[in-house]
């Protein structure tokens, strides 16, 4: 079964190729159906292939397909172990639902077929990423998802903002990729190969802690780019220019989690450097808090979710940085469900509101869109961490494990807790402004419930968001931590973070649930009534701190004015002054100089025969000077 694992990648890839040529001709809804069925089939195949892992009898194996860049140890080899299985199942599972949803959502788009081409292509790329058995192939997937992300963000290319957002996403990702690439250089220089087998198995044989720090920090830069962490987070909010299913699939459920996956995958490397681990965790925690504060003031229905995603990814980084790899992956898994759910729900709303995304013009949708509202309600509870929904189990496990590490991590726990509170605030605000309260719709907007093809995935995801937390509870018996057991083979040699002993976890759980509840309660009170959408969480108006928050701390402006603009100026100076005047100028000067010398010499040929005689005679005398000096002893 695993011998043919490539089928999982090949299916969506074949779908993409097929749809590339025939997608537009197939049209609605067949293009969507083809795409959905390829990825769906991939999901089923992966499920069957992962059978051994469920029974606990499976162990990792590599499948060699063909040589790619053999000199670097970067071949087309797949690694099938529990970690990649979880990722594969998440990608294909959530992916299938989102594909399905898109069949309805993309209704009427002139480039309907092309959309599914790209979507399928993304799935294939993401699967290459998670199934790769070496950093080379990982990097292939890493870049290809970037490409799909670019294509899908700027899918509506006639909109300049969409085109710009796609470009921004790709380029910012590339900044991280440069770091990643440098990491790979370091790996190759020290290990002479990029294969996981050599690099990740007891890396201490090859490298010192210092080298490990260098490698992992570089890899972290890559991860930060892909997973939208500080300092490379700022592309993700703009990425919301893409169609909503794209936001759900790529910018919430799967692609952005690649960084987390990569850190977990390279755990044995990160483990060698306490500094890198601390950096990962700290970046994660601060990103979580930072993004959450910005989310408090956003008015765009999708941008709130985008910042929320950044914030939740911060949790995952916090987890893997603490050594809580399984908890991180678990949060990745649950987050995939509830964040995809929230995005699709917002997509359903946008769809219903005639492509309106401003929450100021929504409100009161609970009644007209009951199914959407119900599923969103589940998602809301899941993300703010109300037991027994999925978010609670995964987020709480992370916070508990972080608390257990103590020291600096204790401080990070506080940040995590505050973030949990803020999450409850902004998500409740989101619900409040969108579904509850009175309607503030524009004239001519007649919201309606979405068709079944959209609501069915919502329901499925809602079910997942509600139930999948239960597969990893810290209890015994039926509620045993099955997810953890499942993943353990992938982290055999890794030292994992441990839960605090005794009743502490339960106390911590109570604290975080209380924080969430507090936040939710406060928000429902705060955002009720007239012009709630303009209100800040505390204090009024668009002044001081809140103006900063409103504008995302002016990060985009700072980057634009301090990096991009000077960069362009430097490039322009190089091109139009240095290159054309100095470099080419000196070339032309040499050419012109030769000509000028000719011009200077010309007047010496005066035309006067006596001058000619003088020159000739001078030549005679000159030659005689040489010869006589040679001859006179």
């Amino acid at each position, binding site marked *: 079964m695993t011998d043919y694992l490539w089928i999982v990648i090949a299916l969506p890839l074949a779908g993409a190729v097929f749809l590339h040529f025939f997608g537009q001709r197939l049209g609605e809804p067949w293009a969507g159906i083809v795409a959905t069925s390829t990825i769906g089939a991939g999901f089923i195949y992966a499920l069957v292939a992962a059978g051994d892992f469920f029974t606990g009898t499976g162990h990792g194996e590599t499948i060699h397909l063909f*040589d790619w*860049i053999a*000199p*670097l140890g970067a071949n087309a080899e797949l690694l099938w172990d529990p970690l990649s299985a979880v990722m594969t199942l998440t990608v294909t599972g959530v992916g299938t639902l989102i594909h399905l949803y898109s069949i309805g959502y993309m209704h009427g788009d002139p480039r309907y077929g092309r959309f599914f081409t790209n979507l399928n292509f993304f799935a294939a790329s993401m699967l290459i990423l998670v199934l790769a058995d070496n950093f080379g192939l990982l990097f*292939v997937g890493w870049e290809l998802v970037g*490409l799909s992300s*670019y294509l899908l963000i700027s899918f509506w290319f006639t909109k300049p903002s969409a085109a710009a957002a796609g470009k921004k996403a790709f380029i910012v990702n590339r900044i991280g990729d440069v770091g990643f690439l440098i990491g790979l250089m370091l790996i190759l*220089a020290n290990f002479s190969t990029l294969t996981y087998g050599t690099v990740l198995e007891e890396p201490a*044989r090859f490298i010192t802690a210092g080298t490990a720090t260098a490698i992992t920090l570089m890899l972290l830069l890559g991860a930060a780019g892909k997973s939208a962490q500080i300092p490379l987070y700022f592309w993700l909010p703009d990425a919301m220019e893409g169609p909503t299913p794209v936001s759900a699939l790529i910018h919430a459920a799967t692609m952005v989690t690649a960084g987390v996956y990569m850190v977990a995958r390279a755990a044995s490397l990160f483990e060698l450097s306490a500094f890198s681990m601390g950096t990962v965790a700290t970046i994660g925690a601060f990103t979580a808090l930072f993004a959450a504060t910005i989310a408090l003031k956003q008015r765009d229905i999708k941008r709130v979710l985008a910042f929320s995603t950044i914030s939740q990814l911060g949790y995952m980084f916090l987890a893997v940085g603490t050594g809580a790899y399984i908890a991180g992956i678990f949060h990745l898994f649950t987050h995939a469900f509830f964040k995809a759910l929230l995005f699709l729900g917002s997509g359903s709303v946008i769809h219903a509101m005639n492509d309106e995304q401003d929450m100021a013009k929504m409100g009161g949708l609970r009644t007209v869109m009951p199914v959407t509202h119900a599923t969103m309600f589940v998602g809301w509870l899941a993300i703010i961490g109300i037991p027994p929904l999925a978010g609670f189990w995964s987020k709480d496990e992370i916070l508990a494990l972080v608390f257990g590490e103590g020291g600096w991590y204790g401080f990070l726990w506080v940040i995590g807790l505050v973030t949990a509170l803020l999450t409850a605030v902004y998500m409740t605000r989101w619900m409040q402004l969108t579904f509850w309260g009175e309607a503030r719709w524009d004239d001519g907007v007649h919201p309606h419930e979405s068709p079944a093809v959209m609501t069915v995935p919502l329901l499925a995801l809602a079910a997942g968001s509600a139930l999948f937390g239960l597969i990893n509870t810290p209890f015994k018996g039926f509620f045993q931590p099955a997810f953890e057991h499942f993943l353990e083979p992938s982290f055999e040699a890794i030292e994992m973070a441990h839960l605090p002993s005794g009743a502490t976890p339960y106390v911590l759980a109570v604290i975080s649930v209380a924080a969430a509840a507090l936040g939710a309660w406060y928000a429902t009170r705060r955002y009720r009534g007239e012009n709630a959408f303009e209100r800040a969480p505390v204090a009024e108006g668009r002044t001081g701190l809140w103006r900063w928050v409103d504008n995302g701390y002016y990060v985009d402006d700072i980057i634009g004015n301090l990096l991009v603009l000077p960069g362009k100026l*430097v490039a322009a100076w190089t091109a139009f002054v240095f290159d054309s005047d100095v470099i080419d100028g000196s070339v032309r000067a040499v050419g012109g100089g030769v000509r000028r010398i000719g011009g200077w010499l010309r007047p010496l040929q005066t035309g006067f025969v006596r001058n000619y005689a003088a020159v000739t005679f001078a030549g005679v005398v000159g030659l005689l000077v040489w010869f006589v000096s040679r001859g006179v002893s």
Partner: protein
Amino acid sequence: MDFNVLSLLIWVPVAGAAVVVGLPRRRAELVIPVAFALSVLTLGLAGYLVFEFEGADGGFQFVEKTAIWSDLGIDYHLGVDGISLFLVALTAFLFPIGILASVNIELRPKEFMAALLLLEGALIGVFLALDLVLFFVFFEVLLVPMYFLIGMWGGERRLDAALKFFLYTALGSAFLLVGIVFLSAQANQQLGSPTFNYLELLDLDISRTAQYWLFGAFGIAFAIKVPLFPFHTWLPDAHTEAPTAGSVILAGVLLKMGTYGFLRFNLSLFPEATVQLATFLAALAVVGIIYGAAVAIVQPDLKRLVAYSSVSHLGFVVLGIFALTSQGVSGGVIQMVNHGLTTGALFLLVGMIYERRHTREISAYGGIQKVMPWFAGFFLFTAFASAGLPGLNGFVGEFLILLGSYSRHPALTIIAAFGVLLAAVYLLWAYERVFTGEPDKEENKALTDIGMREIGILVPMVALIIMLGIYPKPVLDRIEPAVERVIDRIEQQTDFQSPLRIDDIALDDEEVTP
């Protein structure tokens, strides 16, 4: 089969040029089919060569040797190894495409095609010649058809560009000639007979000082050809003013003569100087990478942008070569081929749009993806290939180069890695300005998408781009033995030890101790 395939590769196109010129005026319609057929025939020969090539052998194959100008030891001496094999194939591949791309030439099509075919023969000759004078002859003589291609069929500023191209590169060749002559004088002293035979010259014992001077003489010629910063300014002018086929060939193959020259001659003939100067050249290459990319970002002219991107990409090739590691050099070789394909394709694309709108100004366009979706798709695809997207060919080369050269030039390679970032910046920004948004200019709204002929030109390139990106193994397997020989030679002649030898990778895990 026993025939002189290498000679045929050179002389079929040259004879083709004669045939084309000899066609009677009233049968003018035959010119392009005949030229195309002959270039395809050459491609077939190249295919035969690739197919019959013994991959595991790092030496020269299909060697032909006849003394021609025997008094000075000048031979007609041809041979192909893994390094030149794919450059020959690339050349043979790009010419039929160049011819197809030029079917709309109105001014003297006969002479145009003849110049192209002559150029093809000479270019293949450059890569096959194993005699230094023969190499120089091909190296220099191909300036003539290229000069006419730019000067007669070029853009508005074609005269300056053609002259600059010719003089600048001829200046480099002058130093090369002096170097070659000096080398043969050395041979005369040491071997007792004059020779220009590359294989025999390898046995020379050249003093360290002489190596430096010779490295410099050869190096300047090749650096201008590559072009390495700061010798690059002829390139944007020539590329921009040349007709499409000219730009394709110029970028696709002509520049490779420089990098090929470095690899074939400087590394092998002057190993001592190579080891000493590798860092310096790598530094120039890295400056070129960043510089070319930075300048490309702000170019208002699409063709100039692509031209400057060549400076950047060729910098990678040189960096790889002077990494002096098997991976780096192999990466350099494969990157030569890759760059030929991607940049060639980019120039074709720019040519197609130029044919429609007669402007290369980026600002003259906008939103044309809507009216030319196929064109936009090809362009974006090629742009990503050029930017080194994994799965496409450009990545394989850049990846090998960067990873291979890190162990020798860590700091430089890290800087070079940012070139990958900048490539994305200038290509995507250009794409954004040309293709996205709503088409707001009347001229652009009326544009027609590319037709079957143009797609037919692009598809083979796209196919190769994908093929090389996904399965470069056949190519790499043939390149590596030849590259290994070069590195071996350097190690034998100097006390240099190349990091990252292939053998290290195959080491048993158990034996490795930290």
